[in-house]
């Protein structure tokens, strides 16, 4: 029997949550519509049937208090998993997250633990508009005491959600809605990746590329394309934004002399800024060019699809940026761009790409 089979990122999340909930009876789930027909984009589908409805807690539309309730339950022996359909709704709960969840272990001198998982989903596409499409990882990653993770690929989705549930700390688990559609090989058994990152997913010496979340998939497409023409980039999926471990990236930059970061969120004050600044401190003399950052431009997401053509970072933009610092013949570059455009074919700009199929 094959242990691996191809499933989507969303299915992997569900499988990880279900297995973790079966193994540990202290796991409880909170969501708005926790058992409704959609069950948080399918990720909680029928979990109550397996583990008991009493462990599936319907959340009134009260994000601040219910986050506090989950923290209170975590303080007293439970492992709550609270799922938000949109990361924006967690803005209402920032006080609970940044004060109570993040600081209890510290302030209590280690007496309290908050083994909480908050799933925060980043919306995108189909006119989600300015208030259903934000990437707020920079906001949360700022607070010591929180762990902030952003898996990109199906296998990680499962291994990291299990790690998050097993962790003794509050873990903000940020899922990009477009990653949900990515398909790849995922082991059937229960396994944890730990809350560890970054992970090197392509080895090369042309440039070090560090991507977060869905951007990893766009970067992977570029890595694959470049590989075909003999250019090897070293691609890291950051995975864990806090606590931030940059050893491997520093080592890579010492080798490549070049660094590109790619954020899901705004470029200004984004995750890339910290990576660039930290890596530079430790590899300055190895750098051949100034590190480059990609991320969203400084304005909210408009709803009209016609306004977002240059808004989101995609493979083409990544390829272009890389070509500014890596030697690629102009004709080759044009050909690669064309092949990427062809792959995407005429999928509209605001729907996810069926390209992202494993193995990753």
């Amino acid at each position: 029997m094959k242990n691996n089979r191809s499933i989507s990122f969303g299915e992997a999340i569900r499988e990880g949550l279900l297995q973790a909930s079966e193994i540990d009876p202290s796991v409880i789930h909170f969501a708005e519509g926790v058992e409704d027909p959609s069950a948080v984009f399918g990720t909680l589908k029928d979990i109550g049937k397996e583990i008991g409805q009493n462990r599936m807690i319907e959340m009134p539309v009260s994000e601040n208090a219910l986050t506090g309730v989950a923290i209170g339950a975590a303080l007293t022996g439970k492992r709550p998993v609270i799922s938000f359909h949109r990361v924006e709704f967690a803005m209402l709960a920032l006080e609970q997250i940044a004060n109570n969840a993040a600081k209890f272990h510290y302030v209590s001198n280690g007496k309290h633990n908050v083994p909480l998982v908050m799933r925060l989903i980043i919306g995108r596409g189909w006119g989600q508009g300015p208030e259903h499409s934000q990437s707020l990882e920079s906001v949360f990653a700022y607070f010591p005491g929180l762990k902030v993770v952003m898996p990109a690929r199906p296998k990680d989705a499962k291994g990291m959600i299990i790690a998050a549930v097993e962790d003794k700390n509050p873990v903000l688990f940020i899922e990009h809605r477009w990653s949900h559609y990515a398909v790849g090989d995922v082991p059937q058994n229960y396994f944890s990746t730990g809350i560890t990152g970054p992970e090197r997913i392509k080895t090369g010496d042309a440039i070090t590329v560090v991507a977060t979340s869905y951007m990893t998939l766009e970067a992977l497409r570029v890595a694959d394309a470049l590989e075909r023409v003999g250019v090897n980039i070293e691609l890291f999926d950051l995975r864990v934004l806090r606590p931030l471990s940059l050893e491997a990236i520093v080592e890579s930059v010492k080798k490549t002399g070049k660094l590109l970061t790619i954020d899901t969120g705004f470029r200004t004050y984004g995750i890339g800024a910290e990576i660039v600044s930290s890596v530079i401190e430790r590899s300055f003399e190895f750098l051949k060019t100034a590190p480059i950052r990609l991320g969203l431009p400084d304005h909210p997401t408009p709803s009209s699809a016609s306004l977002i053509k240059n808004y989101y970072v995609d493979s083409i933009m990544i390829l272009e940026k890389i070509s500014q610092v890596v030697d690629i013949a102009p004709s080759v570059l044009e050909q690669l761009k064309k092949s990427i455009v062809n792959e995407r074919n005429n999928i509209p700009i605001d729907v996810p790409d069926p390209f992202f199929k494993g193995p990753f």
Partner: protein
Amino acid sequence: MLLSKGSRSVNCLANKLMTLEKKTSLALYSNMLKIRLVEEEIASRYNEQEMRCPVHLSIGQEAAATGVGFALTQKDKVFSTHRSHAHYLAKGGDLSKMIAEIYGRATGCIGGRGGSMHIMDPEVGMMASIPIVGSCIPLAIGSALSDTLDGNPVVSVAYLGDASIEEGVFHESANFAKLSNLPVLFVCENNLYSVYTHISERQPPRLITSIPEAHGIPMVHCDGNDIEAVYASTLRALDNIRSQNGPFFLLLDTYRWREHCGPNFDNDLGYRSEQEFMEWKMKDPVEQYRKKLLAKKIITKETDLELTDNIQKEITVAFDFAKNSPFPELETAINHVYA
């Protein structure tokens, strides 16, 4: 102009329903019918995938928006939610601008930037629609504060769904509105659901009416599918507010026919029963009122058909306008980050 308001008049403003002038009845009916037909048209065209944004339709809930909107003056200010089409049209909004907005066009009321979840048009007092549950409520209070400080006899309306009652910001807002005796009309459209979740799974078994009462805010609870009742209650509420008695709360029972978000029916999903749906469908606000006006001979089958036809034409014009409008220029995407 089908949404003209000139004809509004009330003979009796007591607790019971007043007798409306024929013109008023007709205007209420045609406004409500227009909203129904517009929403149906959106639903039927949605699968063309040219309206590339989530839509939350008000089909089944038209009496609430129309009764409230019709009672307001143009200067009154409305703050709405994710489900805002009806609120906008009932406030005298421009149909073409709304459809163009949903189509993401430059001619939309805000140039396509917001889409269906952000319909706004300050020129007709449609101040904002905010898709974060409860988030528009304090804005209405702030607007009322502003007008009170300036001595403007204007009412600000905060629309809310039944789920908004669960958000802390509602209670904070209610407390402040009452404390400061502000001219705010809270309109709660209780359609029993938040997405797929029935109110009984989200709120304890107490009456919603107990909540405004607790904050000291006077209220009326009425059948949200009876447009005359809504209209009369709103007038009464506005009268109370304009007499400087502070905020007022309207609780309107109603029902959403189609899925929470999108154009389809979804009773097959099983989160609500076909029977419940059918019971509410019997209370169809448009059909009920049509029958009443037919019985009263305010309309005839013929004039009704004619009216429908005229509205349909207007709708076609609006969709044509939208679809023929240009998209906003890509370079403008960076505009208006700062004033």
